[in-house]
């Protein structure tokens, strides 16, 4: 078990100008489950492969514990990649299936048996050790494959989108099982996914990447409550945050009829390059329905109501000019606002509802840079 450090690690593919991974500075603690997440092409898989030794590091270093492994071959890094295919051999016992890599490495029989038994206990496979794989259920067979990685007692587990091949139901089940297994084993794990829900559910901490650059790293709570920039704000959380470009007028963010108050700290942190504009973000669940004319109310014309039993969501647009409505977007798309409402008080299509951002749940970002502004 060990920590993992990316020390300004960079990967530039030959013949390209923009680095696939740009001076990544990231530390994974001993025993931590860290998720690398981001849209396709953000550099998350490349980063994982740099850690695995499957990508060259053009500048910077990779450390496992205190050891600089930047130029060490994959098989000598003491890591286990748990995203590749594992085969189950039908004529060998479950115990032999789990331990055969150790046998190849020449480990003594007694040690192999001991490690296999330990892993089997954690995986609830003890009573199957001397059976053939045929006798196992599908889920148990998969655990044997996991056991092969565990018995090697690596310092780090690496997983690259291991759930991508599964259907939705199985994905949720398996997600939970991987997370609980990691907690039991306490092995440092670096996990890659494009699915932000998976990241929020599984990680001790999450690292969001975009275009090869680390956007923010923190606990799921941190990422959700205090996103560091517009990209993270729009990426983390489902349904996605509503984000609108307002202009500043008399200490408030204004867009059409909407006037959202801003603190002095927020305004003074704005630079000149923002040209009097500010990006305000608010999650669908951070809105309270208010009456027209209430301070800070945002008028929303209802296009669609989604009733989900315990919850209801209004999908709509900023009321008023169509042109101004295009300044607010959400997970539903351009010129769309999502509001969570009380399912017992559902408006009709075409109605106008007034929503106000709950105090403390407003996110402000500089229009020029996208960076978070003080509250």
């Amino acid at each position: 078990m060990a920590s993992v450090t990316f020390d300004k690690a960079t990967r530039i593919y030959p013949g390209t100008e923009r680095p696939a991974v740009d001076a990544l500075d990231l530390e994974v603690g001993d025993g931590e489950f860290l998720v690398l997440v981001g849209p396709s092409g953000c550099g998350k898989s490349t980063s994982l492969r740099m850690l695995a030794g499957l990508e060259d590091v053009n500048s910077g270093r990779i450390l496992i514990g205190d050891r600089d492994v930047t130029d060490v071959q994959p098989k000598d890094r003491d890591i286990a990649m748990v995203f590749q295919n594992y085969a189950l051999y039908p004529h060998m016992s479950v115990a032999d299936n789990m331990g055969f890599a150790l046998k190849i490495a020449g480990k003594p029989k007694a040690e192999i048996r001991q490690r296999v038994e330990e892993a089997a206990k954690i995986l609830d496979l003890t009573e199957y050790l001397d059976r053939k794989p045929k006798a196992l259920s599908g889920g148990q067979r998969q655990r044997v494959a996991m056991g092969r990685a565990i018995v090697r007692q690596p310092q780090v587990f690496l997983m690259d989108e291991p759930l991508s091949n599964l259907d939705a139901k199985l994905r949720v089940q398996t997600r939970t099982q991987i997370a609980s297994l990691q907690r039991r084993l306490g092995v440092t794990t670096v996990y890659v996914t494009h699915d932000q829900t998976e990241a929020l559910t599984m990680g001790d901490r999450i690292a969001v990447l975009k275009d090869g650059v680390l956007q923010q790293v923190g606990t799921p709570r941190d990422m959700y409550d205090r996103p560091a920039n517009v990209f993270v704000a729009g990426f983390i959380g489902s349904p996605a945050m509503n984000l609108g470009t307002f202009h500043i007028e008399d200490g408030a963010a204004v867009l059409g009829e909407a006037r959202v108050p801003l603190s002095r700290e927020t305004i003074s942190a704005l630079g000149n390059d923002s040209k009097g504009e500010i990006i305000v973000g608010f999650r669908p669940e951070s809105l309270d329905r208010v009456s027209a004319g209430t301070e800070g109310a945002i008028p929303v014309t209802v296009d669609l109501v989604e009733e989900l039993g315990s919850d209801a969501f209004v999908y709509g647009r900023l009321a008023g000019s169509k042109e101004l409505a295009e300044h607010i977007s959400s997970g539903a798309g351009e010129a769309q606002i999502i509001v969570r409402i009380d399912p017992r008080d559902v408006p009709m299509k075409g109605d106008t509802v007034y929503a106000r951002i709950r105090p403390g749940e407003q996110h402000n970002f500089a229009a020029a840079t996208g960076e978070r502004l003080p509250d």
Partner: protein
Amino acid sequence: MAQSLEITAARLDPALLDLPWEVTLEEWPESVLAALPRGISRHVVRFVRLSGRVIAIKEIGETVAFHEYEMLRNLNRLGAPSVQPLAVLTGRSTPQGEPLDSVLVTEHLQFSLPYRALFSQYLRPDTATRLIDALAVLLVRLHVLGFYWGDVSLSNTLFRRDAGAFAAYLVDAETGEFQPELTVGQREYDLDIARTNIIGELMDLQAGEILDEDVDTISVGNRIVERYTELWHELTSSESFDTGERWRVAARIDRLNELGYDVGELAITTDIDGTRIHIQPKVVDAGHHHRRLMRLTGLDVQENQARRMLNDLDAFRAATDRQGEEEEFVAHDWLARVFEPTVRAIPRDLRGKLEPAEIFHEVLEHRWFISQQQERDVPLPEAVQSYIDNVLRHRPDERAVLDPGDTRTIPRIDF
């Protein structure tokens, strides 16, 4: 409820639409199947007869199916030995509306053999090493093309006889990826996976009493590392020599040709004072013999078969004293007087046993053998008849040996 099938295919065979896509693959009726699979397999795989050929159908997740289809298409386009993808089908559902997994359809490689079939046939002690040599050649070829396999194993490969040796073909590209150029780390890791998987597969054969338990599986597995490294070195390493030894340039190219590679680009540099020369192949193309035979005769066969036939062509040329003539004319005559009569002499009912080029190779071997035995030069027509009666008739049919493999593969974690 009618399903909304989506089919991605380069050329759609309409007969594909007649298959029972609304039924889960595991439950397809025997009437459409070409063979029942043996052993356990993580993905459900079935072989089906379609329009006079056999196709393989694999049920997997949608993303993986498309990815694999793309990989196989690229591999085929680049001429890498691999199975040919036919289609991806998504949007399957049962009549009750329950969604079913997507499906990748590939063409079954005629006359190909899964490794287990080879081990359970007449066991030559060196079968394992010959398979591994073939796999090493395949892996080098893929790596030269910038393809990282990610799951190299005997189970993910099909083998075809190639003039007494084997030619290996990639079957499973799920974990594969193309890079402009593979890093040392990627190649070494792929090779390490190969070694581990091969040893595991051999150990499994021993556990199943299909392979003799005296075989040292680890040293056999190590062979892939040795063969790969030798070949990679030969194809890519630089060498230096004095300017007086320029013949070494031609010698290097000859060696590469012998190995089946044409040199597309050779970097040649000299020292400042001009006393030493350094050469390094930069671009190499596999299929040297295949291309030459194709050019001379139009025959499309495998590399070793081509080499064999070219050797026979050279011998024919010498025997008929036609070294001065244009190669193309001599080749034309060789085809008409040697190759085609041999192949045509095989009775129709025995043609499913081996590919024609392989039969030709075996006939030549047989002729040499009986000539030794009888202490005379047996003429070819006589040798052919003897081969048909004494050898070919007793061989099993190899046009379609179907076995999706006994080792289960687990694509990702799925508890």
